[in-house]
């Protein structure tokens, strides 16, 4: 009993809990910036820690140690409190992701419901954060954030439907297990290999929009609205917002890995126990970084779209495509 509690505490706080997740978030931030720089023939951050690996941590710590300014025009309570709790839903969401084994830290028959709910809640938090700072730029940023949520909600959810239909379950473990084994003896039965590639592309586009990375960085567009909804935050609040954005990246990419790339699955070589967990984690991170690199290349190769173009494009292309696709999949009976 005691040891169970101890294990749970260890899991939730140290590994693969909050501490680890935050490290992963900072690592992803560093990785993103490094790849982004590399694509532009630059070196990228390399002074904080080995190869600049601690860059995300340094940014967080520095921002957190700064003075916090609350503008007079802001909604005092929300402005102070909400940023601090903003990262919490995403951390909870990441607990659902099976990284080390086939089962996440939290697992329920309706994992996907929770994940979609958390994705929506995060955007809602952004909108409230932007609105409560009481600046016009923030307000525009928040409204753009909302518009993106509305536009990309359907493609995102519909792209997630494909793995669900294939697995016949809303549970992430079932979805992962449905991707086990190989076709033709060598091709893994991941969702991305096959018809699911359409769903994967839809998911990547929606994921970029959710992450607010270019070309969908309109809510924070620096050259237009000077930082959007994050504009007024400083000090500790802004540090938490930075953390939230990094965590969001971990979360969204992890979902992609689990739903389309078979999560932690891979050749096991007959290893079991802790070794297997480690191996699973290695596979998971390899896939994770692959998706991260793909996302970075896409986002660095495109110019920022206008919010009108985003909404228009989403409703007239992505949404119909996703609907047709899902109907097709249902008719074919979850190929």
């Amino acid at each position, binding site marked *: 009993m005691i040891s169970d509690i101890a294990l749970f505490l260890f899991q939730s706080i140290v590994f693969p809990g909050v501490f680890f997740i935050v490290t992963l978030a900072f690592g992803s931030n560093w990785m993103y910036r490094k*790849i982004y*720089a*590399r*694509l*532009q*023939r*630059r*070196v990228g951050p390399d002074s904080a820690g080995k190869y600049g690996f601690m860059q995300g941590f340094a940014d967080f710590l520095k921002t957190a140690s700064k003075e916090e300014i609350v503008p007079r025009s802001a909604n005092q309570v929300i402005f102070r409190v909400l940023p601090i709790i903003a990262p919490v839903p995403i951390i909870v969401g990441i607990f659902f992701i099976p990284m080390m084994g086939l089962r996440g830290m939290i697992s329920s028959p309706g994992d996907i419901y929770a994940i979609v709910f958390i994705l929506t809640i995060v955007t809602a938090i952004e909108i409230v954060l932007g609105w409560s700072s009481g600046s016009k730029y923030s307000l525009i940023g928040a409204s753009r954030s909302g518009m993106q949520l509305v536009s990309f909600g359907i493609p995102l959810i519909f792209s997630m439907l494909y793995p669900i239909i294939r697995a016949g379950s809303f549970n992430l473990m079932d979805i992962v297990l449905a991707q086990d084994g190989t076709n033709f003896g060598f091709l893994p039965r991941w969702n991305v290999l096959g018809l699911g590639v359409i769903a994967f592309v839809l998911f990547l586009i929606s994921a970029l929009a959710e992450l607010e990375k270019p070309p969908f960085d309109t809510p924070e567009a620096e050259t237009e609205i000077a930082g959007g909804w994050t504009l007024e935050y400083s000090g500790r609040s802004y540090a938490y917002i930075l953390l939230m954005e990094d965590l969001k990246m971990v979360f969204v990419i992890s979902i992609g890995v689990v739903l389309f790339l078979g999560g932690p699955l891979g050749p096991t070589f007959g290893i079991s126990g802790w070794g297997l967990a480690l191996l699973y984690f290695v596979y998971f991170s390899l896939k994770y970084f692959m998706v991260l*690199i793909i996302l970075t*290349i896409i986002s*660095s*190769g495109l110019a920022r779209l206008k919010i009108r173009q985003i909404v228009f494009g989403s409703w007239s292309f992505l949404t119909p495509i996703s609907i047709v696709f899902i109907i097709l999949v249902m008719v074919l009976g979850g190929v």
Partner: protein
Amino acid sequence: MLIIELIKNLFRRPETVKYPYETEGLNFPERLRALHIIDQESCIGCRKCARACPAYVIEMVPLTEDELEARTEKIKKKKVKPVIDLTACIFCGVCEDVCPTDCLNLTNHIVLPSGDKEELEVGD
């Protein structure tokens, strides 16, 4: 295509030069107009540079007692010496052009930043 270019870039060596740790590949040409050197030994104190300076940053400072004593035969009549305020200098090189004894020169060493204006003076 940009995507191909980007993927190529991913595996290319970055073009970054890790200045100040390395300087290979950076351009510091001979003609670069940066830090001044004043050879006070051969300066005759003619004030030409001060008069020609478009930004009025060259101040002719009277020599101190010691410096007056230390004058050599060549600069016997010298009473003032140029002092350049680098914080206002526009590095146009006019002073170098007008100097009759070639004692004032602009080198290609960049002027190091400083938090102290006193440090950014040449000639003292």
